[in-house]
């Protein structure tokens, strides 16, 4: 008895072999590398000419990369040291403005393993260093913006249709309020507006001295507005992250109105925050006079200027923008190229207004939560500033330059205009930045403690269970191999608490063997033969192992669904470790014991 059929041995051996192969990539280090890829949503191919351009730049610097890997989506240059990588990075970034150039650490996995799809574990930000941002979208501002737009549009529509209103405004509590003195007029206007704006719901309000109708977003549209706001912001953020040049960024929606942005390797959080959170955009308006068709604006030097209410072109209509130097004045400038719709509108306006002044308005939304006397207060700020007023010399359309900004403002504005505006202001509600040295240290400390814990357990188990203890130790080692291979295959994020989870499963995996061996000893003590004791020990202990592991698994699954970041990493390794330990501690150790002891006449057991 206690013999497995050959196929069972073979199956177990094959599973272990496959796991070993997929765990292997973790043994190889990483190469300092540069990753060159087309910007997000741009269809620029990486081809021979790209590679040629890169090689020329490198030749000038007298740098030879260790290897160049080219796929359809990216070009990866591996260097032997970080010094070469840095040199090449700064040169390439300047020479390849149409691509995203990012520094990266590329795993130095041999080709045959890569061909099998084997990758090393994916390290969390707490181990590799980088920034994690959680951004909340300020929906209230988004809705207010929409409502302010509706106010303008309603006025125009009602004027066009000759339904003279008393007032159209956005009341304090939100919505759009249209006021009439006459009920019939009000009903007509309400009818017309709700036909034109089906996304709004109307509510009639009768006052003693007038008749109002209040428009609000319907529940359904509100959800759509939220979804679109989140989606739009994600696209914009993705563009901006591309501009920053980050390898392997993560940009995901979280919950209803949050976005997670993870930038591995980024250290300059100040710039990252400035770029990601910025809502800066531009508007072009004609200068007007004090009157109902104009409104006052602040200028940079603190003065006041009246600009026409109607906008010529907004930031959305800007196709591309680059920061340059103005040739005549040698001052920083942003060179702008409008899209076709914007260009047409700009041409028509400037043609009719030659020799009149036009203003460029710089607009920025800021939202920020502060705590005063234990209460949260949201600060919403809309900053509008006229950065430049210039006389229209002649009609122009697509291409022109804007001056009136400082150097870094010009660079940032160009970037933001290129990447697109955030339609809705965002607020950073959580930030976690880990420096690279801390990450490296954590990995070191983590593996040191895994190693130490591992050795202590192995020594103790050998001492306690003799030869069977060695079997348990082999199973334990294989458990770690299987666990690491699973983590690598699933590309689950390994965090510092995750390493602690691996350690904890070592302690717990041995539990299965302890249960089995103690049961075997008990059976022997009860007078059973060695073979029968082995059999009974494994069979009887199994139900117990299953029961006790499932309860820990419950805790693991709850942790996984509730936890974020590092804690999630702990849940993953803990849960996977429990599953793998069931395989190694029960099946693999049984297989080893069957192989060596099964079917033989035994006087006593080395347990």
């Amino acid at each position, binding site marked *: 008895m206690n013999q497995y059929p050959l196929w069972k041995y073979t199956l177990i051996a094959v599973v272990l072999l496959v796991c070993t192969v997929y765990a292997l990539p973790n043994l190889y280090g990483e190469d300092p590398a540069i990753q060159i890829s087309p910007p997000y949503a741009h269809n620029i191919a990486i081809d021979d000419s790209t590679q040629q351009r890169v090689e020329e730049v490198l030749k000038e610097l007298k740098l030879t990369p260790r290897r160049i890997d080219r796929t359809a989506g990216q070009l990866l240059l591996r260097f032997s040291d970080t010094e070469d990588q840095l040199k090449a990075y700064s040169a390439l970034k300047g020479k390849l403005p149409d691509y995203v150039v990012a520094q990266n650490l590329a795993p130095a996995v041999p080709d045959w393993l890569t061909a099998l799809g084997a990758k090393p574990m994916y390290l969390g930000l707490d181990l590799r260093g980088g920034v994690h941002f959680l951004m909340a979208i300020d929906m209230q501002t988004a809705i207010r913006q929409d409502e302010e737009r509706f106010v303008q549009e309603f006025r125009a529509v009602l004027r066009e249709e000759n339904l003279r209103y008393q007032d159209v405004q956005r009341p304090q509590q939100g919505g759009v309020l249209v006021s009439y003195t006459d009920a019939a007029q009000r009903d007509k206007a309400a009818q017309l507006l709700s036909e034109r704006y089906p996304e709004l719901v109307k509510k009639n309000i009768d006052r003693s001295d007038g008749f109002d109708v209040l428009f609000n977003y319907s529940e359904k549209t509100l959800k759509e507005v939220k979804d679109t706001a989140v989606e739009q912001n994600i696209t914009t953020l993705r563009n901006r992250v591309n501009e920053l040049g980050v390898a392997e960024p993560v940009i995901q929606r979280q919950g209803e109105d949050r976005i997670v942005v993870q930038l591995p390797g980024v250290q300059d959080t100040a710039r990252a925050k400035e770029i990601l959170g910025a809502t800066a955009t531009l508007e072009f308006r004609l200068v007007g006079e004090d009157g109902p068709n104009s409104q006052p604006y602040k200028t940079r030097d603190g003065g006041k200027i009246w600009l026409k209410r109607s906008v010529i072109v907004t930031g959305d209509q800007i196709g591309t923008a680059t920061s340059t130097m103005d040739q005549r004045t040698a001052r920083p400038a942003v060179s702008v190229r409008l899209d076709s719709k914007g260009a047409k509108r700009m041409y028509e306006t400037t043609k009719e207004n030659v020799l009149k002044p036009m203003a460029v308005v710089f607009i920025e939304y800021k939202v920020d939560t502060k705590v005063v006397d234990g209460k949260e207060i949201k600060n919403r700020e809309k900053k509008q500033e006229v950065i430049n007023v210039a006389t229209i010399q002649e009609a122009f359309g697509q291409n022109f330059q804007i001056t009136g900004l400082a150097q870094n403002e010009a660079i940032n504005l160009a970037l933001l205009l290129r990447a697109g505006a955030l339609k809705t202001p965002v*607020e*950073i509600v959580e930030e976690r930045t880990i420096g690279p040295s801390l990450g490296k240290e954590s990995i070191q400390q983590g593996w040191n403690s895994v190693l130490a814990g591992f050795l202590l357990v192995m020594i103790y188990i050998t001492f306690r269970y003799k030869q069977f203890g060695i079997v348990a130790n082999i199973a334990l080692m294989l458990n770690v191999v299987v666990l690491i291979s699973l983590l690598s295959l699933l590309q689950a994020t390994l965090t510092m608490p995750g390493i602690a989870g691996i350690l904890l499963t070592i302690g717990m995996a041995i539990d299965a063997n302890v249960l089995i061996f103690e049961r075997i000893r008990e059976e022997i*003590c009860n007078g059973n*033969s060695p073979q029968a004791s082995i059999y009974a020990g494994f069979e009887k202990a199994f139900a*117990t192992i299953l029961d006790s592991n499932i309860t*820990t698994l419950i*805790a693991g699954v*709850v942790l996984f669904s*509730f936890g974020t970041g590092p804690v999630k990493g702990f849940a993953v390794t803990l849960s996977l470790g429990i599953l793998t330990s069931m395989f190694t501690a029960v099946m693999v150790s049984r297989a080893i014991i069957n192989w060596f002891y099964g079917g033989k006449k035994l006087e006593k057991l080395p347990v």
Partner: protein
Amino acid sequence: MSARSSYRVFNFAFLSKKTMLIAFIISGLTILLSLGSLATRGLNFGIDFTGGTLVEVHYKNSVDLVEVRSALDKGGYDDAVVQYFGTSHDVMIRFGLHSDKNSDTLSNEVMALLRNGNQEVEMRRVEFVGPQVGKELLVDSSLAVFYVLIGVLIYVAIRFEKRFATGAVLALLHDPILILGLFSITGMEFDLTVLASILAVMGYSLNDTIVIFDRIRDNLLKLRKGETVDVMNLSINETLVRTLMTSFTTLLTVLALFFLGGKMIHGFATSLIVGIVVGTYSSIYIASALTLKLGASKADLMPTIIPKDGEQATTDNRP
């Protein structure tokens, strides 16, 4: 017969009236102490839960905290809590939620202030948690603990019986309360990782309890004679070696984590060490005793038995 001398079944009276009384008094008092401290002193919540900003920096040479404080004072951050983090090269600075500063740019300003000093300083870690997020994490975490308890209650009730389930869950509540009490009394920082370790301890402690319950169920079936209390006591004794063995090996690994795992994981490892010790105690002394007090008897377990757990395996396959 080749029974080895190293194998022996202990015969401690875990469920005698006297032992149970002592155990209940010890647990009762420590729980009261913990709850008392939690009610009066509360927990020293980390910024994960309170919101705020934490900056950890590393100086090339050892640095005087007065120096760091004065640098921060210059920037108007006189409410910052500055302390060493492990060595005199490492400094941790904590801020509450500022009412007059823009919270998401705070870390950058602080780094700029520190870099203005004479010393070479390196940013190790920055954590900023906004007030909304902190509150949510606290609510979510409490919910997580609650769901684990419910999940366990259901599982044990299905697999065993409702009195066993209640006993297990009550013993399970016992462990986190004591850990929370310890963190409250010592004022150690309670952050997200500590909470994760508490959930792990709950799973772990239950693990021991289940092994004992499994044996109780086995024995109740096998030993038709005998009082329930004796069968339960025998089961605890029979599994005692295993319970202590596993706790010891797990403790070994967690001790390795405590001593070698670094500062970031200290609270986590501390909570696990306490949890393993307390969890082992509660599995042996509390869970079964409570189940007994709740009036569990042989009859309760009969209908849910799965035959394969019984003794048929040995009898059928004896060579």
